[in-house]
């Protein structure tokens, strides 16, 4: 019975990941991230994704503050923040977030403020979708680990 719980949860995890790959939310770089998790760093994926969330939210807040300022003209700073977001999104395999950041960056390079505002909204939307999906994944993983831990010794 307990084994079936673990198997069912693993199937749910696999289904969620397949869906995220199919939607283009994640790409093969996420598999690289998973492959780096080992016995010396058993929570590596969780740790890296949380670093990504912390850093991304600081950058997104800064981008919003910059663009909400009526006197705003520092497109170079927007570009620097977006380079960071593109880089870290690429590193964890967050393909859709990366792609919308690239589009946003193009608007900033043209000093296109309305384009930047739209770009920011799209990035925020994609980022929050990714974050929700990752939380769901981690919850399933945690349930799976708990279910696997509740086993009577053979």
């Amino acid at each position, binding site marked *: 019975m307990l084994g079936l719980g673990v198997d069912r949860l693993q199937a749910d995890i696999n289904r969620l990941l397949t869906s995220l790959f199919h939607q283009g939310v994640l790409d093969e*770089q996420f598999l*690289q*991230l998973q*492959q*780096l998790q*080992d016995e*010396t*760093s058993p929570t*590596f994926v969780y*740790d*890296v994704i949380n*670093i*990504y969330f912390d*850093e991304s939210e600081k950058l997104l807040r800064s981008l919003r503050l910059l663009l909400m300022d009526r006197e705003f003209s520092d497109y170079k700073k927007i570009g*620097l923040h977006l*380079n*960071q977001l*593109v*880089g*870290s999104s*690429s*590193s*964890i*395999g967050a393909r859709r977030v990366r792609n919308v950041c690239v589009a946003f960056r193009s608007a900033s390079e043209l000093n296109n403020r309305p384009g930047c505002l739209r770009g920011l909204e799209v990035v925020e939307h994609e980022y929050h979708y990714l974050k929700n999906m990752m939380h769901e994944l981690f919850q399933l993983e945690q349930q799976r680990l708990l279910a696997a831990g509740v086993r009577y010794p053979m």
Partner: protein
Amino acid sequence: MADEVPSLAESKLTALVVDDNFVNQTMHHKLLDRLGIQNDVVCNGQEAVDVHCSGRNYDLILMDMEMPILNGIQATKRLREMGIESKIAGVTTRANEGDKKEFMEAGLNDFQEKPLTISKLLSILHRLDFYVQT
């Protein structure tokens, strides 16, 4: 996959990760760890220069291009001016041909586009003669 990754621990290689992005720092540190390469991490080109001024030396430097205070191009030039002969591999997510040429001319031994993976890192090590692929 973890079982197929070669270990270079016996070669006692050392590396320095130079990147201002915490996600990349963590990933690159782990990639090198996985290959058995002892490594340190600094946040920008100035810190890379400072760590060499303090007497540390590394076989390999993974140098990001765009960083605050001192970028990868400037840091590479400075290290070469200091006589540092370590192999330096430039890594960046964004490089047009002009940027890449400027980065290489600063004194790089190799260049790789991010995101880094185990196989890209092994390619760097192979091209820089640290690792023979079998």
